[in-house]
């Protein structure tokens, strides 16, 4: 045994080496935790980006099927990113003051879609009414709330994170996530992350809903144009049919109001004979071409601000 090796075995030297090893392990653990956080952020950013690209695509021009797929996608992405065991999404029916259950995710998620609960039920009701998120780590303590959840996901969860879907000033629904995979309660960080996601999701839902409603309205107008009915009569009938939904949303959304104004203007111009119609068509076509070119230039930024 050399002198150096003997020195290395003294209690002092061993203690020093032990301290050093402990420090190294601690530093590595910290580094691993940091890397894990960075990875989680990067994965989330990528998943969010992909989800939004697909949502943008979903909003293009297809009707109710795409709308439901979009809701499904939102719930799936949110649950996956935060590692939730189950999730559900409710939209608000402002006419009846009810939450309309749209999508559930989880092993025993409900088969039946679109059941309704009064807006004033438990945590989801609070979130819908105030627009403030709530995280709860022992939800089973609230039996009435638990029953509403059990109806959507098939079991009573321990922890819940409930976030509003906000479109401008209006709250259009809530997303609920249940039970994190590691059994831990949802954190303040989860709340912030899901909040960011929900605000993007709400925009996508509103877009998709507008497309769906307008598609329904136009198809109703077109049906009314079949021989035997006048144009105005057709528009009147279509508006009557869809009046409730439209009134509700035109009140809430600037988007709807403006879209309807454009429809009214086009309708008014169309009544002034073929020349006016032709001019209107040309102007709108130019505007549309301009908007399309701007949109493709801004595609990288898009509405992912």
């Amino acid at each position: 045994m050399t002198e150096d090796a003997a020195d290395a075995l003294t209690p002092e030297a061993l203690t020093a080496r032990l301290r050093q090893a402990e420090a190294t392990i601690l530093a590595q653990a910290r580094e691993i935790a940091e890397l894990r956080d960075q990875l989680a952020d990067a994965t989330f950013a990528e998943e969010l980006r992909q989800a939004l690209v697909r949502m943008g695509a979903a909003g293009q021009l297809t009707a109710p099927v795409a709308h439901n797929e979009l809701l499904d996608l939102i719930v799936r992405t949110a649950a996956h990113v935060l590692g939730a065991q189950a999730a559900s999404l409710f939209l608000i029916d402002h006419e009846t003051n009810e939450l309309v259950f749209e999508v559930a995710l989880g092993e025993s998620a409900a088969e039946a879609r679109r059941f309704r609960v009064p807006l004033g039920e438990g945590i989801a009701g609070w979130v819908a009414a105030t627009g403030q998120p709530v995280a709860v780590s022992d939800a089973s303590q609230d039996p009435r709330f638990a029953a509403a959840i059990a109806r959507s996901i098939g079991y009573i969860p321990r922890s819940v994170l409930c976030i509003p879907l906000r479109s401008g000033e209006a709250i259009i629904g809530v997303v609920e996530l249940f039970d994190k995979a590691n059994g831990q309660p949802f954190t303040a960080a989860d709340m912030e992350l899901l909040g960011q996601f929900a605000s993007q999701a709400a925009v996508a839902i509103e877009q998709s809903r507008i497309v769906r409603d307008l598609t329904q309205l136009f198809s109703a107008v077109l049906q009314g144009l079949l021989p035997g009915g006048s144009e105005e009569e057709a528009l009147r009938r279509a508006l009557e049919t869809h009046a409730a939904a439209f009134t509700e949303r035109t009140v809430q959304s600037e988007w709807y109001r403006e879209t309807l104004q454009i429809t009214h203007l086009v309708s008014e111009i169309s009544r002034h004979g073929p020349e006016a119609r032709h001019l209107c068509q040309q102007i709108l076509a130019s505007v549309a071409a301009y908007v399309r070119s701007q949109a493709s230039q801004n595609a990288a930024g898009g509405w992912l601000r």
Partner: protein
Amino acid sequence: MRPAWTAAFTPEGLAFPTPIPVLDEITPDWAWGGSTGRGVRVAVVDSGIEADHPALGGMVRGGVAVVERGGQVVYDDGPHGDDFGHGTACAGIIHSIAPEAELYSVKVLGPTLSGTGSAFAAGLRWAIEHQMHILNLSLGTTKREFYATLHELADTAYFKNTILVTAANNFPQPSFPSVYASVISVACHDQKDPFLFYYNPAPPVDFGAPGIDIQVPWRGGGYISTTGNSFAAPHISGIVALILSKHPGLTPFQVKTILRATAWNVRNHQLPRQVEGGVAAER
């Protein structure tokens, strides 16, 4: 990463403002030592209060429910419960800090109200007119159309020495009245000691109080653990009730000054020491 406005209360974000020597004489013991909140009326403007919840010690003394009838917002002074559990939670936190403060439930949220700004404003007006000392507002509206109405109410309260304690929005966007200068705006920190609060020198949020994963009473006589700026505000309401009980007649700016002087980060200039089950806070 946490609810909006709470970054100022993390170990990295916490400021340690310069003490003002004269204000140093204002200690927590001077401010609220020995106080129970007796004689102070606190209105919880929220989803109602479950008055017989064991966590409230029978201190709910009255209140009003704002309801909609025929498109009109009217007051209903019959008994009411809590549709959500949120108001009961806030009342429970206040009672745990100021056990002899009188609680009043101003119900502005419910299944048929869906949080309309006009119901909220009507609730505030009732509480101000009924000589409440403190209004706990763990809610607000982001609708700009209510900006002026609520601003006027907040000013009326201020001039009547009614303290408005508001929760900051959990999302990084302004909500009213929490961004007004006349109110005490609160966000949450992750400490557990109910008397540990921080001062924030960068408004609109004034103070940080517990609100992350804390146990609160809920409807149905139970308890839940929950997170949100909503639950930070009632901690400050409770402490203000203690202060007003011991020093009746203080104005809102005096109360804010006392809170600043007694905030942890102003008095200690260091982070609280973590001990098992919470922190060793100065009381």
